[in-house]
């Protein structure tokens, strides 16, 4: 930073002195003219020029070089040192050269410079119009190719007439090439009147004529703004340019208006309006035709309690972190996004639909306590046939992919359709503790586009999450029982109901109508360390009472030293208390003469009681 960032006040100083020393007739006063100095950096900073490095860049990347200069005739050049990837000083080289007082550049048609580099490279961004403020008239070239020879480069001014008080003289941003840094030099940086830039072509929306169905209240920013000139070498040079260069027009302001900055607002309808633009009097390629259907019909407002909802996309809830709402999965996905906001309600809008995925992988969603997926969808274009809309849920760690397909009657286009799909209906989805993706598929090529809103998992079970009644009272005579956990029998002394095996499960004991019940909250796995090794060869069964509303996986293990362990799968969720007597032969090859531990594995919240071996 040091001297480079120091403000050059010299010019301003001269200017003030001049004004003070003059006596002027006030009637002669005209609007102050801005200086027209074309020079940015010839052999040094031009008067009034400042430099500031961009945040996150290497602050010292730019310096003045008196050794390597254009044709070695120039006294100094601008040197830019691009860092290696991983450089602790910053990830890239980037900064802006700007003046405190604007300059009148309307008499020029290009910013030109000579450049060379220590190796062939493509400079990510190079341009002008960045004043570290509004940067209203920014224009950039992306990926400018430089090599080890000095060459002259030309950045056309898209519309010089607009640049009557420009402060952004030059800026750049360049990261490592293939992970490695290098150096490039720029010299003789100046605005020029070339007169040999020809055939201007400008574009909005990347030159495409787009048509969109829309509603009152929708706003959308026109993007894809570019300006192309034929250089004196006969080849075309394209720039990405700021919206302020364009004059936007709506063919029907009672349907849609467009602001100076290219923000389209739908204000009326039904009806249509075509948004077009010109730059410097030249019509731009590309247009946006808004076909307004009038007032937007919002999706039904969700009413479920937030504590029973995990929201992916909804303005009614706080969404969990989502990686993206459109993964643009190449090469087969055609689906694009044209999301919009209407009356402060965000709507996902998928166009050119074949399939599209939403990902929420960091972190994944544990939906074991959820019962349903909700989503509201709307087909804005008429359906010509009944649509088969497929939804897939993907569980990342294990559990695979589950699919559910619903048929939407052709008559239900242009209205919101609310889907509430039981998670158990997703065929093939065996686990849902690590849900990471929702994928929508046009299963019979019938849907061109759709809106989506209020995508969330929820717990819709009408049954309570805890048993209201205690487990059934055991009836086996105490003499026939070796008990691990029960109010009805004496348990094996010193049994540890919550040994620390690194599990996530929260173990508590709750009283249900005075009956002590073991609760496993958020089960992943959970052990029980018997107070002493047990010989249960004289027993016939393991007895258990268990209750769960939200588990879809639960197993119980008996363990002998080794460890030798065998699982028995329990059917969940339960309706009320389930009582099982599992034959001990099912646990072979566990050594039944030396049983030391029990273990549960699965998910959800589990209530357990009357765990004992019996004859």
């Amino acid at each position, binding site marked *: 930073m040091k001297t480079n960032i120091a403000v050059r006040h010299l010019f301003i100083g001269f200017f003030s002195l001049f004004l003070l020393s003059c006596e002027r007739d006030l009637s002669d006063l005209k609007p102050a003219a801005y200086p027209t100095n074309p020079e940015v950096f010839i052999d040094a900073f031009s008067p009034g020029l400042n430099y500031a490095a961009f945040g996150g860049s290497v602050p010292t990347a730019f310096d003045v070089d008196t050794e390597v200069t254009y044709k070695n005739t120039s006294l100094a050049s601008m040197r830019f040192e691009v860092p290696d990837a991983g450089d602790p000083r910053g990830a890239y080289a980037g900064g802006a050269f700007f003046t405190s007082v604007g300059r009148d550049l309307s008499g020029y048609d290009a910013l030109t410079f000579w450049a060379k580099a220590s190796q062939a490279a493509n400079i990510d961004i190079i341009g002008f119009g960045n004043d570290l403020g509004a940067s209203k008239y920014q224009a950039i070239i992306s990926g400018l190719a430089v090599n080890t020879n000095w060459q002259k480069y030309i950045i056309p001014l898209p519309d010089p007439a607009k640049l009557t008080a420009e402060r952004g003289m030059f800026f750049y941003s360049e990261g490592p090439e293939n992970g490695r840094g290098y150096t490039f030099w720029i010299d003789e940086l100046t605005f020029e*009147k*070339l*007169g*040999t830039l*020809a*055939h201007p072509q400008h574009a909005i929306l990347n030159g495409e004529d787009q048509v969109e169905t829309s509603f009152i209240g929708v706003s959308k920013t026109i993007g894809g703004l570019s300006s192309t000139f*034929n250089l*004196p*070498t*006969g*080849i*075309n040079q394209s720039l990405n340019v700021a919206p302020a260069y364009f004059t936007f027009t709506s063919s029907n302001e009672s349907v849609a208006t467009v602001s100076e900055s290219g923000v389209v607002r739908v204000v009326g309808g039904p009806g249509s309006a075509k948004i077009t633009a010109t730059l410097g009097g030249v019509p731009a390629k590309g247009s946006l035709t808004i076909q307004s259907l009038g007032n937007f019909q919002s999706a039904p407002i969700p009413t479920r309690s937030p504590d029973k909802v995990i929201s992916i996309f909804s303005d009614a809830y706080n969404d969990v972190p989502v990686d993206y709402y459109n993964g643009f999965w190449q090469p087969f996905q055609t689906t694009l996004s044209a999301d919009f906001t209407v009356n402060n309600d965000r709507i996902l809008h998928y166009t050119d639909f074949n399939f599209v995925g939403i990902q929420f992988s960091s972190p994944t969603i544990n939906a074991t306590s959820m019962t349903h997926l909700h989503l509201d969808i709307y087909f804005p274009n008429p359906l010509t046939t009944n649509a088969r809309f497929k939804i897939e849920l993907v569980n990342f760690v294990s559990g695979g992919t589950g699919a559910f397909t619903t048929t939407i009657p052709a008559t239900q286009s242009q209205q919101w359709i609310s889907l509430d799909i039981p998670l158990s209906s997703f065929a093939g989805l065996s686990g849902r503790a690590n849900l990471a993706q929702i994928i929508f598929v046009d299963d019979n090529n019938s849907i061109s586009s759709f809106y989506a809103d209020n995508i969330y998992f929820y717990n819709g079970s009408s049954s309570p999450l805890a048993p209201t009644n205690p487990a059934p009272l055991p009836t086996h005579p105490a003499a026939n029982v070796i008990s691990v956990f029960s109010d009805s029998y004496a348990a094996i002394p010193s049994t540890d109901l919550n040994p620390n095996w690194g599990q996530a499960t929260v173990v508590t004991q709750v009283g249900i109508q005075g009956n002590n019940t073991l609760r496993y909250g958020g089960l992943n796995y959970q052990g029980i360390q018997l107070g002493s090794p047990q010989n249960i060869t004289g027993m016939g069964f393991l007895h258990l009472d268990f209750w769960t509303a939200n588990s879809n996986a639960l197993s119980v293990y008996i363990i002998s030293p080794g460890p030798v362990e065998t699982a028995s799968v329990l059917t969940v969720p339960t309706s009320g208390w389930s009582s099982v007597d599992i034959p001990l032969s099912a646990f072979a090859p566990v050594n039944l003469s030396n049983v030391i531990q029990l273990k549960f594995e699965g998910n959800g919240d589990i209530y357990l009681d009357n765990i004992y071996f019996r004859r």
Partner: protein
Amino acid sequence: MKLNIIYLFAIASLVAASWGCNPDNFQKLDQRNWELVWSDEFNGAAGQVPDATKWTYDIGTGDNGWGNQELQVYTDKPENVAMDGQGNLVITALRTGSSFTSARIKTQDLFGQQYGRFEARLKTPYGPGLWPAFWMLGANIETVSWPQCGEIDIMELRGQEPHIIHGSIHGPGYSAGNAITKGYSLSKARFDTDYNLFAIEWDRDKIDFFVNDFLYQRIARSDVPGEWVYDQPFFIIFNVAVGGTFVGFPTPSTPFPQRMTIDYVRVYQKAN
């Protein structure tokens, strides 16, 4: 740059040789009295092909790309050569993948003239590898072949230098790379953005080359290192070549389609 220097040198030498030291003086040419004898104003309807009583075509790729390793295939299709309905003939070079089509029209066997003023008002195409030309060949080319027949290039341009045109003559002993040639460069302007008038004035002693009636080159009979073969009728040719030895090859970033837009071509004789 090099051609600019050549041009400046040319003025200097012309000035020194002929008219003294003030550059303005050498443009004080003798009064001429021209009489229009042949023209095509190209005022047909859009899509109309050139007048068959005035123009014929070269078709195909010639021999070795018309002797110059040119890439284009010449056709007589309206997509390559037709009126634009606004008073112009447009020759369009098209790219399809890596192949190119264009057009080359000529007055051979339909019209030719010895001496006089030949002029055309036109806008050139542009871009690396584009090579438009307004030129003439000696009518005896079928019997004596090139370069013995003589060639007068009234306007040639390299698309990568759209601000420079060249005027040249080719004859026996001074053809191709050894042609007598001179460039004329516009300052802060280009030949592809506006119409310019390209002309020669030719008599038994000399050929004068003009851009917008500015004389930038005079080739006198005595300047030619070989035989002076310009005492017979010549016919007119317009074409847009793509690639070739004069211009180099088009690059992937050369914009296509490219058009030469000809407002008119007129031929005069000296009136008595």
